[in-house]
């Protein structure tokens, strides 16, 4: 059954190529996937029969490699949910330039299929390969339909992520050969790798490889320009879903299999993640355009999730950090996708994203203002919205193993500094809100149209998700038990 989640977008892609109406085909495929994904999550939560969903077939006997898609645990299910929700919103809210519909919707479907495949695969090869499948259309979309200096920006993300993927591949192959298998469940059964020095080296490869893919400081400089330039669905899908692949990979592989390796790199990791939160946070404040600000803010928020991983890497059992990190990944994915979607809407009705040229949009577009305000608050971390639950849990998780007698450890110190990031988020998000929606209306905003009914569907879907998870985090957390 899970195979259908992959086949539907791929078949729709083929249909688009062979001449079907691109938007209709893509929306139907994304809608079907949304329903299927929700059904899979429900059956995983409610019954033990979720095995019926699994799919597995051998592709190679020596070495043994399988295409196996599983609802392996709550983390896979949550990532699947994130993928199908954001895909639907991205496909539904996008508006292709004339004559480019095939590319626009086709690429979105490929990115989505790649992300879903990566999150569901329990074989190391396909786990990696599906992510690559999603990257290439991302590059193509930015290079073809991006804004600004699209070619240079797209070339930069291609080189960066291509290199990151190669480093990651080296690490994964090493991991597989150390365990003698490509099957992730079989590795998890064997437990942490015995050889300490191999653990440390493989962990370095994985942190670097996944880190580049997740825009870990100082390998983040591809991200903000790429998101600012990318067409809205690409930015939504990459920032919202695909980038979570790196974090998912660290949580899935590095944390359980290389615990000592990770904790050996704990201090450097803490320093780098503070770079994400503080340094990139300050850069975000100084942005003069909304798209640049959102791109940087998405890089910045990766720091919190890395903090969750650091808390897991620190010695001692930590039962909160994993759910916290997963919850925040989900919340951030939904909120950043919604922000990019709404920013695209703002640009379409006003013609600009320059914060200084905008103002007073709330009067002519109240619904847009309300939804943007809501998701802005979520992004800052206001209680009642999903991001808050995740961030607070991560801060708590950082202190789970705090021993007053031993003094503050690196994770605790990092956490204390990282909390300042909440203020930074508030500063840039509220400033952006003020300069776009409040104050006197200017020419470009005076007659701007508000969201139409069909525009509201994806935004409301995302907003409801944020609220639901914010008020009842257990919706997701119960899946992780």
């Amino acid at each position, binding site marked *: 059954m899970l195979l259908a989640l992959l086949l539907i977008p791929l078949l729709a892609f083929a249909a688009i190529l062979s001449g079907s109406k691109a938007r209709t085909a893509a929306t139907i495929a994304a809608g079907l996937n949304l329903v299927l994904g929700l059904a899979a999550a429900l059956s995983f939560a409610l019954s033990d029969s979720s095995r019926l969903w699994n799919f597995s077939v051998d592709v190679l006997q020596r070495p043994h490699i399988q295409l196996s898609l599983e609802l392996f645990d709550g983390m896979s299910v949550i990532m699947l949910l994130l993928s199908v929700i954001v895909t639907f919103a991205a496909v539904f809210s996008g508006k292709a330039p004339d004559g480019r519909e095939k590319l626009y919707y086709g690429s979105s479907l490929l990115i989505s299929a790649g992300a879903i495949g990566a999150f569901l695969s329990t074989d190391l090869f396909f786990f990696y390969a599906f992510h690559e499948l999603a990257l290439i259309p991302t*590059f193509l979309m930015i290079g073809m339909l991006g804004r600004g200096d699209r070619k240079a920006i797209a070339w930069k993300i291609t080189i960066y992520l291509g290199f990151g993927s190669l480093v990651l591949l080296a690490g994964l*192959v090493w991991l597989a050969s150390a365990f003698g298998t490509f099957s992730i469940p079989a590795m998890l059964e064997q437990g942490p790798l015995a050889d300490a020095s191999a653990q440390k080296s493989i962990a370095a490869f994985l942190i670097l490889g996944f880190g580049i893919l997740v825009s870990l400081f100082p390998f983040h400089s591809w991200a903000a320009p790429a998101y600012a330039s990318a067409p809205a669905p690409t930015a939504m899908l990459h920032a919202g879903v695909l980038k979570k692949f790196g974090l998912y990979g660290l949580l899935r592989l590095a944390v359980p299999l290389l615990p000592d390796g990770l904790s050996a790199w704990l201090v450097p990791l803490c320093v780098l993640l503070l770079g994400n939160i503080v340094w990139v946070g300050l850069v975000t404040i100084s942005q003069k355009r909304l798209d640049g600000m959102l791109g940087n803010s998405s890089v910045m928020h990766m720091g919190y999730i890395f903090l969750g991983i650091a808390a897991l890497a620190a010695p001692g059992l930590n039962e909160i950090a994993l759910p916290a990190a997963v919850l925040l990944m989900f919340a951030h994915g939904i909120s950043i996708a919604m922000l990019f979607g709404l920013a695209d809407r703002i640009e379409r009705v006003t013609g600009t994203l320059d914060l200084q040229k905008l103002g007073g949009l709330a009067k002519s577009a109240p619904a847009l203002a309300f939804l943007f305000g809501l998701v802005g608050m979520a992004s800052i971390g206001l209680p009642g919205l999903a991001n808050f639950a995740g961030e607070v849990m991560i801060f708590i998780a950082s202190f789970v193993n705090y021993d007053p007698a031993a003094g503050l450890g690196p994770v605790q110190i990092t956490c204390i500094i990282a909390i300042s990031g909440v203020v930074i988020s508030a500063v840039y998000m509220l400033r952006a809100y003020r300069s776009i929606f409040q104050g006197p209306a200017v020419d470009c905003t005076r007659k701007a149209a508000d969201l139409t009914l069909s525009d509201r569907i994806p935004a409301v879907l995302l907003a409801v998700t944020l609220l639901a998870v914010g008020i009842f985090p257990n919706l997701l957390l119960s899946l992780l038990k």
Partner: protein
Amino acid sequence: MPAYYLEALTVVLGLALLMFEAFGPAHNKRPIGMFAVFGLCLILTFNFFAVGPKEGSAMADWPLWNFYQFDSLARFYKGFALVCTILVLLMAMDFRSILSRFTENPESEDGTGEFFALPVFACAGMMWMASAKDLIGAFVALELVTITFYVLVGYMRRNVGSLEAGVKYLILGALSTGFLVYGIAWIYGATGTMNLDQIGEMMPTLENPNALLFGIALVLVALGFKVGAVPMQMWIPDVYQGAPTPTTAFLSVGSKAAGFILTIRVLQPMFVEGSPVATSVTVILGIMAAASLLVGNLAALAQSNFKRLLAYSSIAHAGFIILALAAWKSDTSDELGSIGAVSFYLATYLLMTLASFFVLAQVRIQTDSEEIDSFNGLGRRNPTLALLMTVIMAAMAGVPLTAGFWGKFFVFSLAVEAGLWWAVGIAFIGAAAGFYYYFKLIRSMWWNEPDRDTASVVLPQISRISVMTLTALVVVLGFWPQPILWLLG
């Protein structure tokens, strides 16, 4: 049917084609091509039913089997040569307009008929190389291939580039033939036999391996010419660029694969249990691999001509394949060894390379240019073709879920297992560079605007079907590589 019928039939087919061309219509050579393709397809079918000598039968005592063998590897490489020749002939059929433009009479196709017969003779040579068991037999087969190629490379005799390529190929080819014969003489002097099986048997008892080692080094250098590896790679860029595109495709796939099967046959006795030369041969191969990887990949970075880029990338691919040989490991029933990895790599290489040459040949005909720039804006002019080309280039770069990934993957696994860390590092740099220069083409197809005056490239029917089939295979094998391993037996 007995296996040696295959070569005999191929040669007969070649002769029949020459007759057909002499007495057939002068203005249109397409029927000759169709006839050749049909005949080769038939021989390809026979290849699956061919058998070697049965143990104890009368046939097994024939002296033929002293210099001819038929095992699953021979079957695989005979099939490989046939498939490659068929595709090259198909490519040549769509390339007739350029061929006739640069031969005797530009108005008609008179004088292009041999272009469909010569590859068939080369194919017979390649098939024989796959069965080589004796150094002299191998040498004769190899010369049959090489001499045919001298003609094929310089075929467009009214084109300066093609002539220059022909002369270069002739001079360097003759030089490498010299190396080969000299090396064979040394091997014979050291071991007293030309038979590869016997060389393998006497290897553990060899007292002083130095003479043998010198012979092997010379032979490897000469074979390096066939496969396009450093130090005999100088001819590749110019010859590839100058030769008619179908010839280039044939050189870079058929000739290379034939060179590799012969290399495998020559190396097998060197790596038997207790061989005194195994370590030294590993070192020689390791150096050749690393140098080819560096030269091929780094030089390809700067190319702006797509055919030259493919030429350098062909050196780089040779480097990867030799790396698998350097990390020698015997094939067993449950694990893929060096021979399996090399064969697998070559099979995927055939699909990707021939597909890109099909496209390149048409780009050359329709835009009169082979620069990467001539692909500008192909994503708008012909999105389907651009999509196919994207898949092929991604496969060349070794992106997962394409066939190209698995070849590189097997090579890396073997090298890591053998502990050739420095070579792994160099191969890693090579793979990264490859990612860069293959994506340059993808970039120009999708991101750059089309030049105003360039025509839209449309593939004629034969090329279109071939490219689509090859690309589909690249994707299917990317998900499911097992079929090639089945073919390997």
